[in-house]
């Protein structure tokens, strides 16, 4: 990250705009978490006022009917109310935090898996998976399988087999026959994962496991690490041939330290860009799931859910569709603009 990079980024007005919007969104969602949670939140997203249904934005609360604790802050519904008389502004605030955490945590998971898998493939990819590796994995899994099925003697038998394999592996040639490389294995796994259309796969898994914020983050993270893994693998394959890695190896630096201190920082640029673009698509995916009714369970508001609830009132209460829609649009747009700007700034060939 040199000077040319920063000045190139600063010149890109759209990217800077994206960055500023992102910072604002970050602050708003943290404020939203503070203001909408707790026992007596300032903005109560689940307060139902049946007398105040479908009020348009900026309409005043009816102080004669409502109890004092039902009146929203400042006495106005900034974004109007929904079909149960809940304050849309409070619900949007609560939903902002969901979007933010889903975006960041799921991308965090996918980047972590991607770096781990891609790094192993890129750095140790030429090592062979030998027959005794395969046999040990089989015996460990069979041993634990029988352990859980409470067939103790078979479990112990396979455990002994494992120790026997570890003892034999230095002495036997057959056990050391290489089957295929780690790289073949990992690229194979990536290819298989890429075959499944991601949104449909996510939809299937989310529908079949108990829905919660955490399971959605985990599912999105676990189904979107392949791009990062490919980037990291490609970068590592070229970096490991470089002289500074050779120098580090000659100095006796451990593999782990070479990966973490010398190679990973050099491979971070494309990962960072794909992570930022990944946040945008994760937010969109979560909104889509909420829209289909498979997202975070009901009392909690998310942007996709507000829109989905408001779609029946499309012509009578269009703000229920437009406010969350435009909010998602702006946030996703800001991430996309910043990510693309970052990519251009990091690619010196495109600079003018």
């Amino acid at each position, binding site marked *: 990250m040199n000077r040319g990079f920063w000045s190139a980024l600063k010149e890109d007005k*759209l990217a800077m705009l994206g960055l500023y919007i992102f910072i604002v969104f970050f602050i708003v969602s943290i404020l939203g978490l503070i203001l909408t949670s707790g026992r007596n939140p300032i903005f109560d997203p689940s307060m139902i006022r049946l007398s105040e249904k479908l009020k348009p934005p900026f309409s005043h609360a009816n102080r004669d009917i409502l109890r004092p604790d039902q009146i929203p802050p400042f006495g106005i519904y900034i974004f109007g109310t929904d079909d149960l008389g809940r304050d849309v502004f409070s619900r949007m605030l609560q939903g902002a935090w969901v979007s933010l955490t889903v975006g960041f945590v799921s991308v965090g998971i996918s980047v972590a898996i991607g770096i781990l898998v891609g790094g192993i493939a890129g750095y140790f990819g030429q090592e062979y998976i030998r027959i005794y590796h395969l046999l040990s994995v089989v015996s460990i899994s069979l041993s634990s399988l029988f352990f859980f099925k409470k067939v103790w003697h078979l479990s112990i038998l396979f455990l002994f087999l494992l120790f026997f394999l570890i003892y034999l592996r230095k002495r036997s040639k057959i056990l050391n026959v290489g089957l295929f490389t780690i790289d073949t294995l990992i690229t*194979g796994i990536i*290819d*298989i994962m*890429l*075959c*499944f*259309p991601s*949104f*449909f*796969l996510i*939809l*299937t*898994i989310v*529908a*079949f*496991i*108990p829905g919660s914020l955490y399971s959605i983050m985990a599912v999105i993270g676990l189904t979107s690490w392949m791009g990062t893994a490919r980037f990291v693998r490609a970068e590592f394959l070229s970096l490991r041939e470089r002289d500074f890695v050779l120098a580090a190896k000659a100095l006796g630096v451990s593999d782990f330290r070479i990966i973490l201190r010398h190679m990973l920082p050099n491979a971070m640029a494309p990962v960072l860009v794909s992570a930022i673009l990944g946040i*945008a698509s994760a937010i*969109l995916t979560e*909104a*889509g799931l909420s*829209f*289909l009714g498979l997202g975070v369970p009901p009392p909690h508001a998310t942007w*996709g859910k507000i*829109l*989905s609830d408001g*779609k029946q009132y*499309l*012509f009578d209460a*269009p703000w229920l*569709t*437009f406010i*969350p*829609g*435009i909010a*998602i*649009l702006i946030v*996703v*747009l800001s991430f*996309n*603009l910043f990510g*693309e700007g970052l990519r251009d700034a990091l690619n010196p*060939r*495109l600079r003018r």
Partner: protein
Amino acid sequence: MLSFIIRSLIQKAITLFFISIISFFVIHLAPGEPSQINPMNPKFTPELIKRFRKQFHLDKPLYEQYLIFYRDLFSGRLRSWKDGRPVLEKIWERFLNSLPLFIVGTLLTWTLSFPVGIHSAIRRGSIFDKTATFFSYLFISIPGFFFAYVLIIFVVNTFHVPVIGMKTFGLYSGKMHMLMDRIWHMLIPSILSATGGIAILSRYVRSQMLEVETQDYIRTARAKGLPEDEVHYKHALRNALLPFVTMFGLVIPGLIGGSVIIESIFSWPGIGRMAYEAILSRDYPVVITLNFISAVLVLIGTFISDLLYMIVDPRVRL
């Protein structure tokens, strides 16, 4: 060439095997099974559940269920748990409904994104380029379901035509009228399925074009005094188009994948909507088959694109 095809076929067969495992187990290992979908329902007596489990082989061990499932799938005997109809027949019927949307959407995508992308690359930094860039960012970022509602409001308020569903229910008038009705109903969903594609593809065309324009042979072409048009459209464009040949193969999987939300909004009785309904009602055979088929389509698509690339680009031939 032949050795490449054989090698890649073997590789694809191995991948296919793992795909069949994953698409089966991802659903069967999830907690809960269809017999427990509604434990509060008094009609679900233990005997009924037992019969249900026996009928659908749920009482057998998983690997046996796996074998039974794929035996039934390939012999065409697999039936939906919901209505007992053969799964493949059901999917085919819905596929025919999705097909027009897919064809129109793909045609729109491919015919619009190339001119836009090429033009904005050639006139980099011009007003056209900036507008195209802005709109492509907008269309990449807009959630499809929100855009759908914006379009619905716009079309219904300005043209006063019904847009939900495949056709107006109970409309029996002249042939021309019914045709127009069909077209109106198809318009918004196909535009929707095309916008995202146009945005992404035109950006990609633009960056590919810019990449090629910095190459040495373009400078050579300019240096020997060729007219600008010939440099752009003959020397640059041909090389920039190479990666897109491979994308023809990758269009195929879009048949199933991307249409869930759009088809649910427009009550379009296509594959995506069927997938969504099957997921909600835990219709395992339909869900697994759809996952499996779409993964297979991706495999076929990548195979075709590899072949096309070898035919078009002589440098790849090994």
